[in-house]
């Protein structure tokens, strides 16, 4: 086997072993932001317009902050992404989902909430940012279960 082919095969093997290489970007700055305004700024959503087209389905009270179910639908035409922030968490930005062709701008996820907080959802559509929010109360449960 000549050297060139060996190098080529090596490169192909490396790519196959690391299929994530092309997609492994993670917005360290945004996820490391310690306040909601800073997190919003990192995702380019500082001047997000409030919108009723972002529907947040979530209980008003979470029995335990370890698992808080939130379901989000964006009815804004051309929604490209949805970001979820929990204002009072040490690091407010919890997730950002990009919807490529075929995906509906919808996501349900379980988030951790350290305390009662405003939960903020940012949708990006048509090059602009929109926001909706909801307060979710977090209680400490009793002893049983």
């Amino acid at each position: 086997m000549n050297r060139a082919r060996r190098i080529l095969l090596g490169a192909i093997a490396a790519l196959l072993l690391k299929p994530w290489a092309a997609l492994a970007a993670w917005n360290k700055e945004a996820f490391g932001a310690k306040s909601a305004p800073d997190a919003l700024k990192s995702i380019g959503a500082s001047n997000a317009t409030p919108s009723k087209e972002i529907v947040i389905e979530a209980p008003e009270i979470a029995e335990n902050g370890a698992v808080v179910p939130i379901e989000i639908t964006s009815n804004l035409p051309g929604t490209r992404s949805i970001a979820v922030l929990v204002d009072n968490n040490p690091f407010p930005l919890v997730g950002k989902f990009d919807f490529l062709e075929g995906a509906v701008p919808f996501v349900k996820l379980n988030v951790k909430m350290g305390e009662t907080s405003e939960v903020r959802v940012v949708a990006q559509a048509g090059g602009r940012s929109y926001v909706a929010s909801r307060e979710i109360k977090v209680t400490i449960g009793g002893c049983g279960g």
Partner: protein
Amino acid sequence: MRASVLVFSTLSIFLAPSWAQDAKKEIERYRQMVAEGSPAELFEVAGEALWKKKQGPNNVSLERCDLGLGPGTLKGAYARLPRYFKDADRVMDLETRLLHCMVTLQGRTPQEATARVFGSADRPSEMESLSAHVAAQSRGTKMAAGLSHPKEKESYELGKALYFQRAGAWDFSCASCHGEDGKRIRLQYLPVLYKPEQARPVVSSWPAYRVSTSQFITLQWRMNNCYQQMRMPEPNFGSDTTVALIHFITATGKGEPYAGPGNKR
């Protein structure tokens, strides 16, 4: 100033009960949303693998374990527990029966098989995962703990007596917390488990995923933990005490379709 205080306090008295009702409704909604996508299913997957895993000196899996409907028949078996098993000549719940199969089929010692019955968030125990898998196979089946065999009746009566038996450093019984309607610990309503209508939703959702600790918890764990909270001596795993209590409560909830492994705070 005084008039507004009077109006406010009067309004508070009227609004307080409705706030409690709204809180209850929202918590119900919380529970429903958690249940719609529960990590409990992950333990079912892990349990299925363990069920099929060859273990012990005999190097066999648990697939021939008889849970009351014949060796290897899992569908609907959990819903019929606890019940009397002739080969062990005693009433057994799910976990004692699993232990029995580990010992008799796989050749394992009781000490080894019970060395770690309650796991942690990082590492569930074998019992926990197996319980999830076996219980899941009874989804939709009506709960029907055994009540015909003399030993079943005896176990039921023992469980009932224990439920009301005050003992331990604090002179507590199950009924101390689970004995009166409408009682709560913080926002947790305490079901009165000797009343069928309150036992039914409870028995149809155990074992369960506990969100606060990310642990999968079983009824043996629950009995052990309650005894701990009541400052009673620790009951042995699969003891007559724990099985009898589980039997009494499960039988009280009979008829309820099993909903599958549930979720608890």
